[in-house]
């Protein structure tokens, strides 16, 4: 049996006089993994996280955090959770050191200056420890929020849209930090609509749209299972239309008829490529180049979300 650190069963959220934000979501998060929850804006990602953290009350369902019911035994559950919110919500007049130390105590941990110093150094915040938060840049504020979330040494860290509004360098730094946290045994759940982020970091991916969890899959397996490949033939002479004789393969013309594209499933035993190329040759269609490309996680995500619409 898989070691689960978070188990959601039938989590729903209905707002009075409003839409249903979540429809009976079931989800198991494995200890030590990086899980990316993908979804368009308004899909229910933040609502789901907020429910687990105790910020939003669910309409129904149960939440187990490391075996502790988050609604009944909420203290034990919340001690294990750290949250980096999407918004840069900070106490503007507090210093970096004071606000991080505050977060540690708030979550029931005794002061540990050595740990806090190490944490601030890891996040390149130590030099700014005496600075007031209002004087920091947006990127530095984001780091402060991460430090606050990690101040009580949580086992489960939620990163809600960690890359929203941060520059490329900070995004890379954050990815490095996330990986190092995972190496220390911290389980990470990140919500994002940057597919690149999930593709880069996640072990498993969940796709949510309109409050429904559409799938949860190992990232590599997902890309193999749902991934499509494209065969592009760059034509010597452009075509005006796809010849009827090629209808069996349903190719399309792109780049003003200069490229004939055949999309196939890479996992199929018969890809149809030999037959397609033979028929192209028989029809006297000459091509000067040939290349194949696999679809990205983004293609898979868009495809899934479009289907839900």
């Amino acid at each position, binding site marked *: 049996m898989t070691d689960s650190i978070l188990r959601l069963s039938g989590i729903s959220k209905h*707002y009075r006089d409003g839409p249903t934000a979540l429809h009976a979501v079931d989800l198991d998060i494995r200890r030590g993994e990086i899980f990316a929850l993908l979804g368009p804006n308004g899909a229910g990602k933040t*609502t789901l996280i*907020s429910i687990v*953290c*105790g*910020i*939003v*009350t669910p309409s129904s369902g149960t939440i187990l955090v490391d075996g502790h019911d988050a609604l009944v035994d*909420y*203290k*034990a*559950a*919340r*001690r294990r*959770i750290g*949250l980096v*919110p999407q*918004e840069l*919500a*900070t*106490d*503007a*007049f*507090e210093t970096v050191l*004071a606000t991080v130390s*505050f*977060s540690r*105590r*708030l*979550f*029931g*941990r*005794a002061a540990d200056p050595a740990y806090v110093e190490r944490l601030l150094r890891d996040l390149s915040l130590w030099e700014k420890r005496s600075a007031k938060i209002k004087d920091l840049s947006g990127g530095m504020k984001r780091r402060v929020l991460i430090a*606050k979330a990690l101040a009580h040494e949580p086992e489960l860290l939620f990163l809600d849209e960690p890359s929203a509004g941060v520059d490329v360098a900070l995004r890379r730094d954050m990815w490095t930090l996330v990986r190092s946290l995972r190496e220390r045994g911290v389980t990470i759940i990140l919500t994002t609509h940057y597919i690149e982020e999930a593709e880069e970091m996640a072990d498993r991916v969940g796709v949510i749209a309109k409050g429904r969890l559409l799938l949860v899959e190992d990232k590599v397996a997902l890309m193999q299972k749902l991934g499509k490949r494209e065969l592009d033939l760059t034509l010597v002479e452009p075509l005006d239309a796809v010849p009827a004789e090629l209808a069996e393969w349903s190719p399309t013309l792109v780049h003003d008829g200069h490229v004939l594209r055949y999309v196939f499933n890479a996992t199929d035993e018969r890809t149809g490529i030999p037959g397609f190329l033979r028929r192209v040759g028989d029809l006297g269609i000459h091509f000067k180049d040939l290349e194949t490309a696999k679809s990205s996680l983004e293609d898979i995500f868009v495809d899934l979300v479009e289907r839900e619409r």
Partner: protein
Amino acid sequence: MNLHGIWAIYRFEMARFGRTIWTSLAVPVITTSLYFIVFGSAIGSQMREVSGVPYGAFIVPGLMLLAIFSESILNASLGIYMPKFTGTIYEILSAPLSPIETVMGYVGAATTKSLLIGLIIFATAHLFVDLPVAHPFLMLLYLVLVAAAFCLFGFAIGILANGFEQLQVVPLLIVTPMTFLGGAFYSVQILPEPWRTITLFNPVVYLINGFRWTFFGQSDVGVGISLGVSFAFLCACLAFVTIIFRTGWRLKA
């Protein structure tokens, strides 16, 4: 019990108070001094004594409570409203804190601030009048009770408020008029009927008179009733705040 968490909130709130300490303390001291000059010296010189107590001394308990009421409501309501306004409330809501622990942190700090201000006004009063205290221990206890009750009241207002102006509505439009009409500057006994009877429906009358009793050993209403009203108010505020946290009303979606 999450003692570290309670202490964290308490220290955070006291640090906020510390950042504005001079204005926080100077305002009540100046205001009280003005009251003494206007009521104690100008009007008091015409009145001499009320129920056998020099008028300047008579108004001290009322003045202290007037400041305690407004400062308690303001401090406690701002304490919880600011995190709501800035968005940092997420951290409080996601922390392993029970409702009572959260209240202890915020209301404990606000009560401490109110007590400090009350005691500074008490000290300031000594500059103007001779002020004996018949029951000093009970005076302090009563001060804590009233400050805690109004801080709880302010805390509830802070949770319910949807804007800064709403924080001001209750203290300015309800509490201050009730204090002025509740015998802060006069004895209820001097009012003609039916105003005397109507005034007795004002709960603030009992708070002020109970507190005044701890100073002079006499009041317009029974001490037992005053204590009962003060406790009832404290319990009502505590129950209301507990319900808010249990249900998440105005705190959680």
